[in-house]
């Protein structure tokens, strides 16, 4: 058992620090200068796609290098990368995609030229994903699949150029069979995207309708009918990614800064011992979770897949996101009610409430908490 930094690791840590110091956009520039940041990462040798292996242009870091990167970046605000392409789809293409697909899609994902969305859930297939019904039929010429049906809760579907999508090509007794993984160009005729407004008043998710949408066969990933197997691998990546542990730790630090500015009599909210202990309790769970993630990473490094630990990370990680959101609106206090944009009370409260409300989805999407517990009891505890 050893996580001490070797001389090589220490040198790497130094390199990371220097890189961040030189290239990470400061303050508000995190939005305006994100392009420069990605370019600097790319020039550095794949640091723009930290999790990618070397053969696909990533840095090919080992587990301790990933650890160092996460530790060095967790208290900094990195430009946000939507996870759908880079984190969720890319590993599937690398593992199951054809060479042509890899060459066609990976470079654009990497360069943020193409936005992806995920087409999994359907009105009748939520956490019970295998009951999906969106139909894909091969045309007589065998050149295209014709897709009919609907997908729902499609995050960022309204800005997406492409969707990776689970479709049913066959109905068998085993529901997990007969599912095919397709890549669909969102500009194809017959696709309609309708917005869904969530509790926080925002438009992130959509319902997508398919009416005789033609998808070329070369956009099928892997074999017909094997899509479930590919998606399952992806779900584990998704679960690790949406746990967002480092990000929640950053949020917690931001929350402390905000709390210092919240007035309580002549002092501030950080003087309130009961509130301070709530923050401490959240931070403790997150610090443990950071190490659970590291243990999971070490397992992957040793040749395993992100397995049952990814369910722990998803389950606890999303609970902790929600906890920090709760504590944020608690900090806003009476001003948590401000639902307009007038300057009334601290400005973090408006967005804090929005995020709290929208954040309720975190324990629902990507396999709800109840499903994660089912997964753990089946896969880890061996209960049928």
């Amino acid at each position: 058992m050893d996580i001490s930094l070797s001389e090589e690791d220490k040198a790497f840590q130094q390199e990371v620090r220097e890189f961040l110091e030189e290239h990470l956009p400061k303050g508000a520039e995190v939005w305006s200068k994100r392009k420069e940041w990605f370019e600097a990462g790319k020039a550095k040798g794949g640091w723009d796609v930290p999790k990618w292996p070397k053969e696909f242009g990533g840095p090919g870091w080992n587990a301790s290098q990933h650890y160092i990167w996460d530790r060095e970046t967790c208290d900094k605000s990195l430009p946000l990368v939507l996870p759908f392409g880079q984190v969720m789809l890319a590993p599937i293409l690398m593992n199951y995609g054809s060479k042509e697909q890899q060459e066609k899609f990976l470079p654009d994902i990497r360069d943020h030229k193409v936005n992806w969305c995920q087409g999994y859930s359907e009105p009748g297939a939520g956490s019970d994903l295998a009951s999906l019904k969106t139909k894909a039929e091969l045309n007589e010429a065998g050149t295209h699949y014709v897709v009919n049906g609907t997908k729902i809760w499609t995050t960022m579907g309204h800005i997406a150029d492409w969707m990776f999508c689970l479709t049913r090509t066959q109905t068998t007794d085993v529901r997990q069979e007969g599912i095919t993984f397709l890549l669909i160009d969102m500009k194809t005729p017959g696709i309609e995207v309708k917005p869904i407004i969530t509790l926080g008043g925002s438009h992130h998710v959509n319902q997508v309708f398919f009416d005789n949408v033609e998808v070329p066969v070369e956009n099928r990933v892997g074999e017909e009918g094997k899509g479930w197997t590919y998606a399952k691998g992806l779900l584990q990546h998704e679960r690790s990614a949406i746990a967002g542990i480092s990000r929640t730790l950053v949020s917690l630090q931001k929350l402390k800064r905000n709390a210092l500015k919240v007035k309580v009599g002549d002092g501030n909210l950080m003087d309130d011992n009961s509130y301070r202990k709530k923050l401490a309790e959240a931070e403790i769970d997150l610090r443990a979770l950071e190490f659970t993630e590291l243990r999971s990473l070490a397992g992957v490094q040793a040749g395993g897949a992100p397995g049952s630990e990814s369910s722990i990370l998803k389950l606890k990680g999303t609970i902790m996101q929600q906890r920090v959101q709760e504590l944020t609106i608690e900090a806003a206090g009476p001003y948590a009610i401000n639902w307009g944009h007038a300057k009334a009370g601290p400005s973090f409260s408006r967005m804090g409430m929005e995020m709290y409300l929208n954040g309720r989805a975190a324990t629902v999407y990507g396999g709800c908490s109840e499903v994660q517990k089912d997964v753990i009891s089946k896969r880890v505890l061996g209960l049928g």
Partner: protein
Amino acid sequence: MNFDLSEEQTLLKDSIQKFIADNYELSVRRKQSKQKPGYSEEHWKTFADLGWLGLPFPEQYGGFGGNLIDTMVVMEELGKGLALEPYFATVVLAGNALLLGGTEAQKEKLIPEIIAGDTKATFAYAEEQARYNLEDVATSAEKSGDGYVLNGTKSVVWNGSTADYVIVAARTSGNRTDRDGITCFLVKADAEGIKMTNYPTVCGHRASEITFTDVKVSAEDIVGEEGKGIEIVEEVADRAILALSAEAVGAMEVLYKDTVSYTSQREQFGHPLSDFQTVKHKLAEMFVETEQTRSMLYRATIEKEANEEKDARLDIHALKHMVGKYGRFIGQGAVQLHGGMGQTEELAIGHYFIRLQVIDTQFGDEDFHLQQFANKMDVPTEGGDEMMLPF
């Protein structure tokens, strides 16, 4: 980076597991716990013969020069076996106090005896009014001629009744709650003026209240520097927390695994209990919190071993908080899911639950360490009004 045990650690783990499997049936434990001295002297000899007592001590005193991870392995396995032997008091508490502050003469005499299993010792640091505050020491050590005279009462001294030596934290100067002015002394347990009130603990171990009335000690009996004893007390407490937490994680693992197996066999309403989703989910939560606590155990132990002071400080508080909070969650959950049988003394499950409950009271409980963490956590120096991060 890896979280695997070394070959030596794996062998150590296996040998303790085998010993526990062969010797620690619950009925035997119960019998030994109830009769004097409260554990098996024969087992203690075996601990010595197999080298477990010498593990953390440097080779120059006949030990094996082990580190905190080795101790973690031992304590986790002893925890799984609910072992009664005074390994914690003698090796972890007194052993570390000696290592940290002992004079060469003290170490050369006592450590080889401890390793051989011939001498036992304990650490009397706590007092009733202090609760979990290590700096609150009323017991006085007044200078008298070349030596000192001890007066006062130390509370909840682990395995006091079988100790040959007691290392005592007493006040040589300052006020009762001053950080400075505490000094540690090595005292023979049968010295004149020492009175022990011994009692069994709810978890089957033994503890003592020790009263010192004009007990004479010499300057050579000081462990560490005069007036700076708090440094030893705190360092021993850190290592004690790591050891107890390893024991707790061992107990937590047994609890959730035993409960999985019990609920898979026990049938009600025509099904094994584990067929019911409400039971499955509870078991999944027990597994998750065991692994979470194990992660923090690894984190704090590794940081402490690597002398990463700031992180280790925070994570030792975090760990003891989690051990209290999740230990209770898992212990109570196991008892609940064992139904009527869970209420009985007959099953091992209740004894692990009780042990976890007791560990929460040793060296600061869940709430105490949450407060410590809250006091010491990283708080930015300047406030702001910042946007929070989206998902």
